[in-house]
Structures are given as C-alpha cells and as structure tokens.
C-alpha cells in the first residue's frame, strides 16, 4: 500500500443514529421474498433470525450487503455453536447433532441488525466462505475451522489459528476429549485430577483429598 497517494474523502460516512433512518422495506421480508428456501424463526427468547441453507449463504449475504435498503456492510460477529447437549433438541428445529454458524450483521448506513444462521451436520460440516463479501470473515472462519472443525471451501487461507498446527481435535465441540499430553508434557501434573466438572476422566481413580505438593 503506497503511502504517497492521497486517499479520496469518503462521501458515504454513516450518520449517527439520531438522524431518521426509517426505511420502507424490512430486511427480513426482503430476503424471504427473494430466496424461497430461507425461513424466518425466533429463538426461545424471541430473538428473530433467518435460517439459510448452507449452499445459499453466499448469495444471501451478497444480497443483504448490496440491497439499497438493507446495506449490511459489516459482519459484527460470526460464531459457532454445537447443539450436541442442547436440551429438548429433538423437539426444536435443529437436528440433534448439528453445528450452527450465526452471522450477526450490522448496517452502519441504516443502523439496524440482522441475524442469519446456517446449520450443518457435524460429520460433513462445510459452509461456503463469505470472505468475498466481508473480508473480516476470513478471521472468524479460521477460528471456527480451528475450534469446531467446519470447512469453508473457497477460503484463501484456511488453517488453524489458535491451536498449534499439529493439534488433534476441535476443542470447542461438546464431545471434545481433553488431550493427555502435548509436546512431551503430561497434562495432569503431580497426581492432580480433574475429578469433577464436565470433562472428568472416569478411568482415573478419585483421590481422597486434593493432592497437595508441587509448587505454589
């Protein structure tokens, strides 16, 4: 990036919220009219979202970014979720063992939010990348690939971001088994056991009292 060329002043600086931003079209309605297989849902605590099939996510996101009344120009957050231990999942809309990506979008122009969700099965988790729509998605998708194991075909540089490259497993999944060692170091030190909590190892004997000793 050359520092000699002057940058043009951006004429489209968003205005703060106190200026009226009433738009005639509701973003969710516009998306539902345009894409037949997108469905509108509400969470248990009445937060609306649109459920998008994985194959359509690129088209839907391009639509919401470019539509003049929606202008979702920012991807606020892209988070993963593992539904393996969700209570009552059989009664809900998601199959029991899916992973869910949640796209929280925001429009600086119109100061309004939009939430999209994509569900994928955990054994063949693959969602097309939206890096072409918002470049920031590259970072978020790498993190989800690392911690949930979702593949993003088309991503320019999909590799682990938080864990070392030779780490095995995807840690944020609900069925992740904590490793017993890494780099020659055993991960339960000096006889301590994780004898309670959701990730207890049932094979280890429970000590009578917490193991003392070792350093501070």
């Amino acid at each position, binding site marked *: *990036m050359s520092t000699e060329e002057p940058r043009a002043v951006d004429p489209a600086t968003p205005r703060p919220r106190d200026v009226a931003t009433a738009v005639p079209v509701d973003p969710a309605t516009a998306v539902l009219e345009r894409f037949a297989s997108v469905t509108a849902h509400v969470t*248990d*605590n009445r937060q609306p979202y649109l459920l998008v099939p994985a194959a359509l996510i690129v088209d839907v996101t391009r639509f919401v970014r470019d539509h003049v009344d929606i202008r979702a120009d920012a991807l606020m*957050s892209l988070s993963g979720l593992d539904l393996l231990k969700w*209570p009552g999942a059989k009664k809900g809309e998601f199959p029991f063992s899916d992973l869910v990506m*949640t796209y929280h979008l925001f429009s600086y122009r119109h100061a309004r939010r939009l939430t999209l969700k994509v569900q994928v099965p955990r054994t063949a988790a693959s969602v097309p990348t939206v890096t072409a729509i918002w470049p920031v998605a590259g*970072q978020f998708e790498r*993190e989800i690939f690392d911690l949930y194991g979702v593949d993003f075909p088309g991503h320019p540089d999909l590799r682990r971001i938080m864990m070392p490259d030779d780490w095995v497993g995807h840690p944020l999944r609900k069925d992740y088994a904590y490793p017993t060692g890494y780099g020659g170091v055993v991960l339960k030190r000096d006889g301590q056991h994780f004898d309670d909590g959701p990730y207890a190892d049932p094979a280890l004997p429970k000590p009578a009292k917490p193991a003392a000793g070792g350093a501070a």
Partner: protein
Amino acid sequence: MTLEAVTTSGDLMRLSMGPQHPSTHGVLRLIVDTDGEVVSRVQPDLGFLHRSIEKIGECVDWVQFVPYTDRVDYVCAMNSNHAYCTAVEALFGTDPACAVKVPLRGEYIRVLVAELNRISSHLVAVGAMSMDLGAYTPFLHGIAQRETVNDIFEKTCGARLTYNYVTVGGVTHDLYVGAEDDIARFCTELEREMLRFNRLITTNTIFRDRCAGVGTISAEEAIGWGLVGPSLRGSGVAFDVRKAEPYGVYDRLTFDVPVGDNFAGSRGAKGDSYDRFVVRVLEILESIRILRQCLKDMPKPGPQDKPADPDTGWQAEVKKVILRPPKGEIYHRVENPRGETGYHLVSDGTKIPYRIKIRTGSFTGVGIFEHLMRGIMIADIVTIIGSLDIVVPEIDR
C-alpha cells in the same frame, strides 16, 4: 521503494517477529517477509495466549465467569466486566418476568469505573505506541497517571488490575467514602498532565511525521475488515456504541465522539496512524467530561439502595434470579476502549452457560495486517500495530 522492487530484486528473508518482542504488545508473532528494509508480506501467527476462556465459560456458572472476563482484556478490566454483565442482563431482559433491575447509583458507578478504565487503557495505548517508536518518557507519564487510577480501584474493590467488580445486577461494593473527591482531583490533575503529554508527544514533529500517512485505512475498508472503536473512528466513521445503542446511563450523558480527520496535515491522510492516535488522546478528554457529569448527577446512596448484604440486601435479590436466565440467546455489545466488545450468549436455561462467544476489537484488528502491511518499512509495522491498539489476550481469549 515499491512492492515490485522488493519481490524481484535481492533475497527475501523470512523473519519471525515475536512471540517475545518488545514492540508487539504481547505474545503476537508476525512472520515478516522482507528484503531487510521493505516488507513484502506480514502473516500474523496467533494463539500463543489462547487460554480457552470460551470453553471455561461452558464449565462455570454465569456469575463465576466474571473474573475470566477480566482476563480477556486486562488493560481495561472494568469495561470487560461491564460488557459481560450488561450482556447477561440483556439476556435476562428478554423475559420481562425475570428482568434484572440495576439500581441507578449502580449504573452511575459502572459508568464511572468504565470511563476511568477507558482513560487508563488509552494511556497505556498511546504510551506504548510512543514507546515502540522510541519515545520512552510519555509511557512513563501514562503509567504514573494509571497508578492514581489503580489506587482508586484498589480502595474500591481491592485489586489493582483484575477487578471482578462489576457483576450481574450492579457492582459488588459501593464506592468508598471520599471516592468522588479522589476522582474529581484525578480529573483536574489529568487535564494538566494531558497538556504536558500533548506538548511532549502529540504535537511532536518527529512523532507526527513518523505516523503520518502510515497504515492508511479508508472508511469502507475499515468497515469491511471489521475494525471497531478508535481504529474505525480514526478512519472517519462516526460510530460509537455508546451513542448508537446506549446502555447504562450513557443516554443521559453529553459527550462528543472524536473522529479522525487527517490531523497530520499535508503529509498524512484520513485514517492513518496519527489519526487513530489523536482519536485516543481526544477520547481521554471526553472521558474526563463524562466523569465530571457522573459525579454531578450520581444519586447519593439512599434508602432506595438496599444494603449490599448477601443475605437480605440487593445482592440476595439478584441471587434469586441470576441462577437461571431464560433459554435463548442474545448478542450484546458495548464500547470498550479497543472497540466494540460483543458477547453472543446462548443459554439453555441452566445455571451454566451453554456458549459464550466473545467478539473483540483486537481480533479483527489483526485480521487487517496482511492486507495493510505490504510495501511498508519494517519500522512502520510497529507504528501500525501500536495505532490499532492490539492486545493479545483479546485476540486469543
């Protein structure tokens, strides 16, 4: 020297800048391809401080997670606490039957400590950026002022750095007797100190020319690459979560939002490193303004604030409701010194969260490195990292 000259002539070296490096603001590793002077590519290597805080969030109670939010961004720990607690309260707020009501004095105290911590965080940010560019003295001035803030916090909650003070439903203790006078005195001293600071570094020609035009980010790029907070405002986007989606008592307070506007003059551009630096300095002054308003408007502790007794006071009331938030999810964001910090909370109705996702400003700030740092000098890498105010615990969580 242009980018083409680097790639065709000479040998390219691959250097590892970090993870232990005096100027990378923590354990950030950058893999720099350079010919010795001009950089052709920078790849960040993250994860050296990945402490699996999001996984821990699925193992502890909702309220037990508050100390971990301190560690997410320890430079502004009060703001981090505040972000999580307001998100949990917003989750409760989706069901009117179990909404958590924070006392008004509690809200004012939250804003007080949040703005104090914004000041101390920005002092670290601008001080560290100056130190990385070779000016050691402004950093020490900032650290000295930060000590006063630490004293106030220590007398309030007992800790100097990781406070665990803002909690779901309010704050854990009321302010100590004399806190308002201490804060007022700190505001006056800091204003005098900022004049000296600005004379020392902000208006310093060498510093300004070093930062001018370096790492220029336009408004569309900043929005597309997910920059938030002072980094976004330095590029001219006038967006502040405190104004756009007010929380707490920010809607009753009057303050301006500084926006970058090519402060460097002829050698700079809108959205360069100097703009981001000056936006932070101006935000310190705005925070002083907010502090003064809070001190004036804050209600005195009265009969409406029940004593903070865990058995009979307001803490007991909160304990009755905070055990089980309604089933569902929410995305709530607040304005931290490093930009918006968003919490995507998913609750399954039990007292242990189902998923806590923390979206931080530094994570997306690092995402722009590879795009931004091409064809620049090695010394400019340090300028850009400092101006984007990257702290590694926020990236890695």
